[in-house]
């Protein structure tokens, strides 16, 4: 009987990917300081469960590869092998390789085995090395290294072992990978055909294993079924018995050419040392021969460019592959689920209360209580909605953590010394946004590594510390999440960008541009100033893709740069893409929505507090702060009812670094609106972030306040005005 295991594949993949992430994170921690036992244990455990899982599901290739990794890790754990940078690198590459193999498996594609074989060979040669000096003795005491001997294993599974999802066959196959096995099946307890329960296991096995493995390795195979079977592993040499005639040999190992040598080791129960040495050498050599061409492929530039390739096509391919992964599940912390259950509980109570009310006689008192009940219901619904939204929220550390590896690898490659600082890792954002932001982030970080941070020599010459610093910072601001990528490198060269923009025809040589405007040019399509095109970045694709990707998420990206002190990219994204609280406002006959999170207050204007700057811009003196007034009707070219400022209302909103007032005719209801994309069928409209459908079925547009203020032509808000600047910082700290 065989269970359909495919239903568990998804869980296995998810757990394995998580395990790989954990391995990677720990490995990266290791490279900084001396191996910490706990980290090695974590890595080992992750590798072990991947091996176990893949064995159970019959993914032999992954199991056998992980096995080698695990064997090596085991030796490290026992202190018999060291874990220096090269080994960490090797392990990291194995993690990558496993990840690719698993990805291929999960998408039903054929996996590229050459890398695994190459890596396996590397591990095997490491395993073959004499162990580290101090432990040689203990190891030889523990087991005569390299000598092959027989293990006599009796494996009597309980009847119900199949019900627990374990498949003895896989265990036997796994044993076969340790060495040569001869399996004798005992069918004595098999009942008559009509009495067979198909879900019971009636067999037991006697296994002779000829291998140089340790007892723990054998035990490991049966570790998962320890409680569901009787198992006896003994070290005695196998005595020839009559049973050999009824042997059912599991021959997967016999097919292997390398085993031709081991064949003769059956006869002497203690083979001489020299023989086995020869044997293991030949084995490794064959593996190496297999691996040689594969290693070459890996070292070739095509491989490395594919790894770091930032061309559009790779991105596209990635996107499609991500699409498949998109259907995956999400892990939610239990307290979020608990709060959700609480909400539902309250909702049920409210519903019961309303139900009860509806059954009673209607009088004024009941109506009043009914209204209270409905208010309660509204409250519940909203809280429930917030809780559900929170389920989609994940800490940004999911994205940040991958950069540890990226920065490590790429800085090594470039011979730069870079320290990566992560701040605000716990800042939460929507899973969808997170998935879509990681590619643009990779571009930006890579850019900082490649162009931003200088070489150590250059840094020393500039009087800076040899070690460059890249900071990733995330925090909430209003209804947005802000992600900053800050490096302390050379900064953008405005002169170079200007020259390049002129040659590319983006600007005219006579154009007068501020440094800020020039810096923004790097987001134009086809723009790159890197003198040498490198693997990492500088092919002129990138920044414009970054910008458009971020804009597609209703976000914005900005750059600030100080020559010789560094560059700061500021990515601003909405927390969620689905719903927002909106304030409906009216201008003439048009209704717009201003996101409530942007609104600080709404007020009626006292005309005496309004001053006019240069005949163009009105500012309101709002308790000592000058707030520029944006007339919505003017910006959007609508007919307004309000002829003077005291007829309408001013909605004061928070913009980037200060405040602005949006002047409208009237405030209408506040309500939650479902955000619909305007760009799906139309194009980006300045000052509009999206659209929604109101209760009456008409479309209403959602105002993007930052964009609106830009359209209105008020720039540099908050600069040169101390009150506003101070206020905005205090806002942020709240």
């Amino acid at each position: 009987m065989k269970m359909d295991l495919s239903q568990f594949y998804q869980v296995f993949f998810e757990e394995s990917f998580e395990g790989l992430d954990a391995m990677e994170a720990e490995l990266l921690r290791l490279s900084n300081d001396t191996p910490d036992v706990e980290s090695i244990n974590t890595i080992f455990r992750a590798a072990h469960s991947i091996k176990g899982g893949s064995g159970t599901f019959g993914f032999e290739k992954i199991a056998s590869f992980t096995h080698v990794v695990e064997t090596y890790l085991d030796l490290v754990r026992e202190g018999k092998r060291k874990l220096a940078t090269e080994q960490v690198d090797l392990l990291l590459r194995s993690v990558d390789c496993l990840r690719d193999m698993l990805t291929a498996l999960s998408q039903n594609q054929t996996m590229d085995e050459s890398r695994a074989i190459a890596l396996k060979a590397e591990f095997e040669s490491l395993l073959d090395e004499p162990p580290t000096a101090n432990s040689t003795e203990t190891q030889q005491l523990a087991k005569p290294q390299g000598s092959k001997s027989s293990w006599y294993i009796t494996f009597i599974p309980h009847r119900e072992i199949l019900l627990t999802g374990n498949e003895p066959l896989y265990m036997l196959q796994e044993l076969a990978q340790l060495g040569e096995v001869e399996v004798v099946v005992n069918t004595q307890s098999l009942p008559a055909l009509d009495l067979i329960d198909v879900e019971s296991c009636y067999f037991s096995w006697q296994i002779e294993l000829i291998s140089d493995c340790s007892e723990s390795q054998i035990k490991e195979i049966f570790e998962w079924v320890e409680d569901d079977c009787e198992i006896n592993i003994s070290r005695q040499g196998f005595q020839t018995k009559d049973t050999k005639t009824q042997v059912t040999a599991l021959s997967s190992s016999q097919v292997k050419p390398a085993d031709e040598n081991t064949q003769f080791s059956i006869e002497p129960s203690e083979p001489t040392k020299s023989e086995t040495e020869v044997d293991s050498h030949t084995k490794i050599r064959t593996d190496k021969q297999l691996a040689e061409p594969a290693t070459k492929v890996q070292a070739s530039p095509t491989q490395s460019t594919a790894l770091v390739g930032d061309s559009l096509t790779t991105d596209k391919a990635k996107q499609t592959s991500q699409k498949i992964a998109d259907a995956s599940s999400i892990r939610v912390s239990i307290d979020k689920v608990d709060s959700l259950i609480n909400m539902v509980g309250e909702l049920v109570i409210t519903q019961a209360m309303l139900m009860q009310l509806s059954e009673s006689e209607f009088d004024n008192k009941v109506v009043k209580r009914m209204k209270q009940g409905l208010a309660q219901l509204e409250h519940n619904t909203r809280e429930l909605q917030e809780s559900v939204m929170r389920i989609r929220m994940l800490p940004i550390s999911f994205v940040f953590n991958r950069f540890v590896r990226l920065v490590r690898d790429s800085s090594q490659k470039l011979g730069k010394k870079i320290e990566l600082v992560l701040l605000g890792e716990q800042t939460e954002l929507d899973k969808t946004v997170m998935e879509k932001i990681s590619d643009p982030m990779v571009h930006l970080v890579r850019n900082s590594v490649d162009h931003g941070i200088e070489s150590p020599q250059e840094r020393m010459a500039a009087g800076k510390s040899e070690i460059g610093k890249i900071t990733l910072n995330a925090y909430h601001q209003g209804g947005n999440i802000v992600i900053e990528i800050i490096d302390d490198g050379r900064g953008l060269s405005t002169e170079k960008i200007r020259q390049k923009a002129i040659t590319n025809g983006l600007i005219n040589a006579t154009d007068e541009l501020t440094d800020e405007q020039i810096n923004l040019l790097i987001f134009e399509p086809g723009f790159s100033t890197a003198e040498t095109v490198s693997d990492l970045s500088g092919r002129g694709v990138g920044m414009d893709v970054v910008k458009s990707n971020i804009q597609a998420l209703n976000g914005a990206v900005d750059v600030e740069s100080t020559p010789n002190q560094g560059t700061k990219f500021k990515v601003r994204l909405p927390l969620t893409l689905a719903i927002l609280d909106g304030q409906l406002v009216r201008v003439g006959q048009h209704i717009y929505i201003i996101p409530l999170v942007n609104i600080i207050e709404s007020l009626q204007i006292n005309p005496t507090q309004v001053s006019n700057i240069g005949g163009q811009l009105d500012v309101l003196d709002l308790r000592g702060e000058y707030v520029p007034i944006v007339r919505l009707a003017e910006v959007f070219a609508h007919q307004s009812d309000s002829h003077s400022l005291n007829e309408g209302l001013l909605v004061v909103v928070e913009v980037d670094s200060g405040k602005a007032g949006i002047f409208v005719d009237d405030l209408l209801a506040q309500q939650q609106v479902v955000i619909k994309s305007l760009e799906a069928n139309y194009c980006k409209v300045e000052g509009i972030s999206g659209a929604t459908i109101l209760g009456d079925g008409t479309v209403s547009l959602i105002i993007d306040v930052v964009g609106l203020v830009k359209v209105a032509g008020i720039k540099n808000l908050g600069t040169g005005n101390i009150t506003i600047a101070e206020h905005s910082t205090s806002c942020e700290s709240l």
Partner: protein
Amino acid sequence: MIEEINKKLEQLNESASEDLNQYLSFFINDEEYAVDILRVQEIRCWEGATVIPNSPKYIKGVMNLRGTIVPVMDLRARLSIEERPYNAMTVVIVLKFYTVKDSAKISGIVVDAVADVHALKAQDIQPAPELACNVNAAFVKGLGRSEKGALILLEPDALLTIQ
């Protein structure tokens, strides 16, 4: 009338034939224009649209098509034909089109009235002559022939893509 054509549309989508292309025609002034019927998603009465600020003059705004936000374009304005007030015959034809980036979008066009469905063979379509005056050459795919006279075949991709 609209229902009739909508029904025809449904049948067509089920059995699109290869050699014979069908075109949905409609009027602007007395001229009969047409678009490939496979691009037509549906026909609706004009029910108004929400104005998009600072949009080109020919964009009437956006409408709600069962939860999707769809821009609506006034074909007269797009073709620089003098506008006239909408009446009971005015309809919106919702069309599918492809932008340069290869993504499919939908957009509505406001026309005076729908006319008919014509079947045209590829050889029946003549390339449009160098067009004078008010029709932008890029919008016209070619000229066909109906019982009443010339049929101006429009190219939705060029027509509906907004620069």
